[in-house]
């Protein structure tokens, strides 16, 4: 049996986008709305407040396709998004999270 972990499967086509955002009730909606209204699925998402809680960090795991460049430009335009960093196909946040999602 050629077992592959979830992260290895995702590594084939996924990319991780890391955002610093203001931390208030509407921000998540603004961010994921950009993806959903383009029928662009967000495969994984992690959010944690930073420091005093005024800002949060969001990690988005998304499929790498031709629309990603445009998506990132759109995310950068959001007023509540302070910074956008793009990682490769693997990120320890999702790798470590995996143990919680194992059945």
């Amino acid at each position, binding site marked *: 049996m050629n077992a592959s972990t979830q992260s290895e499967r995702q590594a084939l086509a996924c990319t991780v986008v890391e955002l610093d955002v203001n931390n208030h*009730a*509407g921000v998540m*909606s*603004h961010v994921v*709305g950009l993806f959903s*209204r383009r029928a662009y699925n967000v495969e994984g998402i992690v959010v944690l407040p930073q420091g005093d809680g005024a800002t949060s960090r969001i990690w988005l795991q998304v499929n790498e396709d031709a629309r990603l*460049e*445009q998506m990132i*430009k*759109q995310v*950068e*335009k*959001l*007023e509540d998004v302070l910074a956008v960093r793009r990682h490769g196909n693997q990120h320890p946040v999702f790798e470590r999270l995996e143990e919680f999602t194992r059945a």
Partner: protein
Amino acid sequence: MTTQPKTITLTGAQLAVRLLERQGVRIVSGIPGGAILPFYDALSQSQAIRHVLARHEQGAGFIAQGMTRATGVPAVCLASSGPGATNLLTAIADAKLDSIPIVAITGQVPQSMIGTDAFQEVDTYGLTIPITKHNFMVSSAHELLEVIPRAFRLALSGRPGPVLVDIPKDVQVQSIELPADESAWPAPGVADPLPEVPAEPLAIAAEMINGAQRPLLYLGGGVVHSGASLLATALAEKASLPTVMTLMALGAMPVDHPLSLSMLGMHAARCTNLALEECDLLIAVGARFDDRATGKLSQFCPQAKIIHVDIDPSELDKLKAAHVGLHGDVGQVLKGLLPLVKPVIREEWLGRVAQLKRDFPLVMPKVEDSRSHYGLVKAVADALDDSAAIATDVGQHQMWVAQAYPLRRPRQWLTSGGLGTMGFGVPAALGAALAEPERTVVCFTGDGSLLMNIQEFATLAEEEANVKVVLMNNASLGLVYQQQTLFYGERTFASKYKGIPDFMALAKAFGLDAVDLDEAADDAGARAMLGEALNRRGPCLIHVSIDVAEKVFPMVPPGAANKEMIG
């Protein structure tokens, strides 16, 4: 002896009104309702702001748009919670697609009741995320101090757009202490400084223009928003650039300027789309390669390299990869390009374009008849000068006006481009007339569009606004009828009205003047009636029956390449 710092006590509503006054707002449009009554109560005490009572919130939204489109200054519309807010949505979405900086203020149920399905509660914040540039839900009166100026700053900065501020009723009635000295408050919102124009791509772009054999300038609405019309025309003249304009940019260069090829795309003159086929360099300025302009994108300007200038970085390479992308304010970029571009007269290319214009001009059948589609547009233009503002609704009439009216100045032209909203015309024209009362504002409309916001005739009459509603009545949804005729085997369905209102009686019932050109004995009589109606101050309906068989030609079939024009 020390004096205590003086403070004043204001409610959230009073503070919001004061912040609008400080922002320079002098006219707002809206409709009150339960959740925004504290704000209206405060507004009633304002000496500076006049309220225009719309008859439907969508009308209020388009009145604000009309004020903004005519002047470039952000205008404000107001609505209550629930249906008030949902009725605003279309006007906000319309502003988003055409990059119009309006500020919408909505009342919301008290915070303690949010999420309980309270009376007239709707998730205004959630609903407006995808159709605003940014939106706010205000959770305390103090926040207003930052949020209101920020709303105006965001609406105006970079690529303009609509901003919504949702204010729960308890925030409106909350009392807070503030410094009596308003200079201690955050300053009114103004546009952010313009981004620096990058030098290297500017030099490359200039080199490409200097080296091109058949360059073409493609102006979009961004040229109007940036106030860069004269610079765009100057660049065209210096570098011998034949110029096409999008629907949004008409008038940025006078459409009868020798270098103008007028509107490109689905309903362009043949010469315009054919020139695009032949160009070897396309200089896109504040334009976004909309499908109505480009036709089938893969076959748009097949021989051309592309320079793309836009204030919004996400527009660069969005639909068409540019050889040079220039992120910056259109005016700043044009200013930077002008000294780098060599003065040249491109005899061969201009000769070729002149040949195309001679061989494939816009054909306007029956233009000499003032009661035909093109003839009416020309007759209106003949009776007015360039100070008139021209608004339209959406449909065949809109395209006939876009093709035939001699638009010669930026902000002369108010039309719903991106969203294509029927019902836009009357309230937008009213807004333009409120903002610039000295002008004559013409609203070309069709019988389908007019009925979508006809309730604003009441507002028009009440305000005695100088708006002339020119109704091309073909008792149908003309552009639908046309598409069904051309592309759906003549199976015209749901596009002809069986019941036709008496528009003359309707206008009079609302208190408008009305003239029916159908009743004139001949063309000269119709022109006399028209000229008299246009030049008599005050709102007036000018009714003309148009043959439903008339079409907007040429037409690029939806999805086809621009060279495949029919008609």
